[in-house]
């Protein structure tokens, strides 16, 4: 990088030096900002640091562009590995393994099928809400306990 900048600066100085003899005052006026100097002032023909930097910029860009391909060159291998991944994953993930968890899962016990006791049809009063109900409608599936009671 240093070497490149040094070469660019050297080329810029050489370019300016060779251009000093042939450059006219109109050319200098076009490149330089307006400064109150005599038309024949030799200092006006000398390049300013800004001009040097401006002239050296292409060289820097060239130097930077030299590094860009390196950065670009590093990305393709990454994409290449990305494209390789599916090929590696496909053989390691056989479809048989996807079905195996359900096959290896412990079987849940089958739900118990309860029967419903047949209770006689008779009108009763539901003490939870005071509504009249049919005893036969109170039967539900499952074990059933009938408890006969009286207040006194």
């Amino acid at each position, binding site marked *: 990088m240093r070497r490149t900048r040094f070469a660019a600066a050297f080329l810029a100085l050489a370019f300016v030096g060779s251009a000093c003899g042939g450059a006219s005052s109109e050319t200098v006026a076009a490149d330089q900002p307006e400064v109150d100097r005599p038309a024949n002032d030799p200092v006006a023909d000398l390049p300013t640091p800004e001009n040097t930097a401006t002239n050296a910029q292409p060289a820097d860009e060239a130097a930077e562009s030299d590094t860009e391909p390196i950065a670009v060159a590093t990305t393709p291998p990454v994409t290449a590995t990305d494209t390789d991944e599916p090929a590696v994953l496909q053989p390691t993930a056989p479809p048989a393994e996807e079905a195996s968890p359900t096959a290896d899962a412990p079987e849940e016990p089958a739900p118990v099928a309860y029967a419903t*006791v047949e209770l*006689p049809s*008779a009108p*009763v009063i539901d*003490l939870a809400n005071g509504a009249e109900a049919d005893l036969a409608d109170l039967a539900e599936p499952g*074990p*059933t*306990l*009938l408890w*006969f009671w009286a207040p006194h």
Partner: protein
Amino acid sequence: MQLALNFPDLNIIGLGAQDSLAEANEFVTLTGTTAAPITMVWDPSFDTWRSFGIRSQPYWILYDGQGELVSSSPGAIDFEAVTAAL
């Protein structure tokens, strides 16, 4: 009742009769049976008791999950017998 809490699948139906409806309501309030998962009903006609042949109380009848008669006994509910049957 602890039995209803221990066996949530057990359907418990309390069939009350005799006396009056007001006394039946007072009974369920005092015993707190309405708060438990127990269906408490009252039969003023005794028809339900007669259909099961009940002549005294308390009395309890237990059916298993298949609807088969397990126990039919007078007196207080035998929790151990019910637990063993379930």
